């Protein structure tokens, strides 16, 4: 039990989970779950309490018990206890100050991240403003290697996302050519299938693989079907460079997704043995605030803390990409543009603080209060904060999943406005194709008919 007297009012909090939930910035999903602060001043009281809680208290009180939850077990089993003990007596406020200090170097942050549980990282983020989150995120640049290297300074990658409402192979191919002609596709060429059957998924894998081979494109292919479908396709000889799965921050929500540690271990080993890519990073995870609450599997924990726990779980399998899609679900979890922007900044920081190669998909659906302007603001801010990659969707309109994401045009714009280059291997390919020169699109760019 914690209490805080603020402006002559006393506020009580039952537990660390309660403090974390009430210290969160306003989000509709936490409200729906009935765990958010009842007023702005109560939110501030929770932040004050949180700033003085010791990391040791958080360590000793995981928001979901170790015995009850696989996510908690992975986070605790992977923790470096030597490093944890060095900082166990810090308060959350001191952790925030340490992260932001000029004296703290990138290597220091990578080191302490190995001794932080996900709840500690979530707690620090709750004491941060937008600029805090951007400054902190800029300091941490996790890299990973599949066929290309992602996350190096000065570079920004994109997933070419050429979906088609009924997986028409020529339709997928055309959108893929369009994306490549804008310089999008160095992170991955990743198709969301409408048909989740092994045959259909295998067909798209072969098609994308063959195209990549024919045009000698330094990248990786991926079809974002359920992991069990991809594993079956792989066992039947389909060429997979990167294997995908959506993850959440509680065991209950992961069971809803039909995924477990055992399954991910199997996928990890299968990819090392049969995947087409160099590696060592061969998995691709998608995450985002709100999935646990929409599945009614949140166990009374706030969306942001559960998102941090998702990263604690994800880092176990050393992914090549972690893509955050907060904003994809709808207004019941993230209400409007303001909440999306905040969630994107929090998630980018928390993911990086876990040592993960993070990308952001600033997205909106048509039943929430957000529009293109909000999305572009979120894109610019997270690019400034050093996101590794974004999605590339033709015209920003995903005709299969029915939502809006960053377009091939946005991708090219983000690179140009911040002076960022494609991934090293891919940039050389773009230059050879005559699509890019000195980091800028040429006149030839944007013409899908150059791929004959």
């Amino acid at each position, binding site marked *: 039990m914690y209490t805080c007297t603020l402006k002559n009012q006393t506020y009580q909090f039952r537990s660390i989970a309660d403090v974390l939930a009430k210290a969160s910035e306003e989000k509709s999903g936490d409200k*729906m779950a009935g765990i958010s602060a009842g007023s702005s001043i109560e939110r501030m009281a929770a932040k004050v309490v949180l700033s003085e809680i010791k990391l040791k208290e958080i360590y000793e009180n995981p928001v979901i018990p170790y015995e009850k939850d696989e996510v908690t077990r992975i986070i605790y089993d992977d923790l470096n206890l030597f490093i944890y003990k060095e900082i166990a007596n810090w308060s959350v406020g001191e952790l925030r100050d340490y992260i932001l200090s000029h004296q703290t170097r990138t290597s220091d942050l990578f080191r302490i991240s190995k001794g932080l549980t996900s709840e500690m990282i979530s707690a620090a983020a709750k004491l941060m403003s937008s600029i805090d989150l951007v400054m902190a995120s800029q300091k941490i640049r996790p890299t990973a290697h599949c066929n290309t290297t992602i996350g190096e300074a000065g570079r920004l990658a994109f997933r070419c996302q050429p979906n088609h*409402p009924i997986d028409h192979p020529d339709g997928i191919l055309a959108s893929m050519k369009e994306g490549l002609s804008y310089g999008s596709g160095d992170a991955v060429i990743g198709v969301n299938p409408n048909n989740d059957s092994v045959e259909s998924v295998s067909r798209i894998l072969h098609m994308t693989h063959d195209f990549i081979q024919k045009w000698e494109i330094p990248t990786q292919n991926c079809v974002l079907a359920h992991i069990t*479908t991809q594993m079956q396709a792989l066992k039947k000889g389909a060429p997979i460079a990167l294997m995908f799965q959506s993850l959440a921050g509680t065991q209950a929500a992961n069971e809803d997704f039909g995924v477990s540690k055992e399954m991910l271990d199997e996928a990890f080993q299968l990819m090392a043995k049969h995947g087409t890519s160099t590696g060592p990073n061969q998995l691709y995870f998608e995450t985002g605030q709100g999935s646990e609450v929409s599945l009614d599997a949140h166990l009374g924990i706030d969306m942001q803390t559960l998102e941090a726990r998702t990263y604690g779980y994800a880092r176990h399998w050393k992914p090549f990409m972690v893509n955050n899609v907060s904003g994809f679900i709808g207004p019941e979890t993230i209400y409007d543009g303001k909440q999306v922007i905040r969630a994107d900044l929090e998630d980018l920081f928390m993911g990086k603080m876990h040592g993960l190669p993070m990308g952001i998909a600033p997205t909106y659906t048509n039943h929430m209060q957000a529009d293109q302007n909000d999305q572009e603001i979120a894109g610019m801010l997270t690019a400034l904060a050093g996101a590794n990659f974004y999605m590339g969707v033709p015209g920003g309109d995903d005709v299969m999943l029915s939502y809006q994401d960053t377009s091939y045009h946005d991708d090219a714009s983000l690179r140009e406005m911040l002076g960022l280059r494609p991934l090293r291997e891919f940039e050389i390919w773009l230059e050879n194709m005559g699509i890019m020169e000195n980091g800028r699109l040429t006149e030839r760019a944007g013409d899908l008919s150059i791929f004959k």
Partner: protein
Amino acid sequence: MDIQTIVKQVMEELQKEGQIKSGDKPANDAVHTKESSVRTIIYEKVKQSGVDLPADLQEIEKVQAITPARIGIGRTGTRMKTRNYLDFRIDHAAAQDAVFKDVSEKLLNELKLPVLHSKAETMDQYLMDLDSGRKLHDSSRQWAEENLPKNKEVQIIVSDGLSSTGVEANIRDLLPALVQGLQSKSISLGEPVFIKRSRVWIQDDLASIVNCDCVISLIGERPGLATAKSISAYLIYQPNEDTVEADRTVISNIHEGGVPPVEAGAHLADLIEDILKHKASGVKLSQLK
């Protein structure tokens, strides 16, 4: 010669031929009457290549015809051209509006669907409180208990979901095709119902009342930009309190530009036959197959 010069020359030619009227020129060129200051714009979306000097224009037009994706639109700098930007914003505006429309009484009467209600009293409650759309309202529950046929193999639910436009556009073709498909396989069917402001999980609630083996929800999908008229089908075998999302089989993008509704009806009937045969749905079903 650059593209702007070409355009300028063409415009001059057209003006000479009198194809562009003076009303299209800047207003300060002419003394204008009251009528000439009224400009009527009929805006229609046209699918055409926006790529300046493409390597193969025919190729671009060919692929534009096989996908609703916004490809071959070209660029100005790194940005979209004005026309494409406006198209995008117009489609978003239309999609936002589609969420808040109701399915018409006329359609429901025509299909003779009994109308049940979820616990969501208002659209706002429906959007913000998931639980309210996942459970039947007490009066609807009672009606279902008293009136719906029990112990059939299949129960069909039609839900407005997030696009009543989707239901309006597809259900006339989809529902009869599905019913016919099931009948031809001699699969027993309860009475299809419409549940207003309902979400997918309401199928678990109704299944427990009618005690069916497989329940299928035909639900309006959240509207996209390319189409606000899409329906998804969610199928589950014997849902219970241990049911998880991965147990549901989903067929999405049922609409004229995706899986056409008549075709989808036949396909869904085959799928239901499969589910009943394997006594499983979702990830479990695909692992058994």
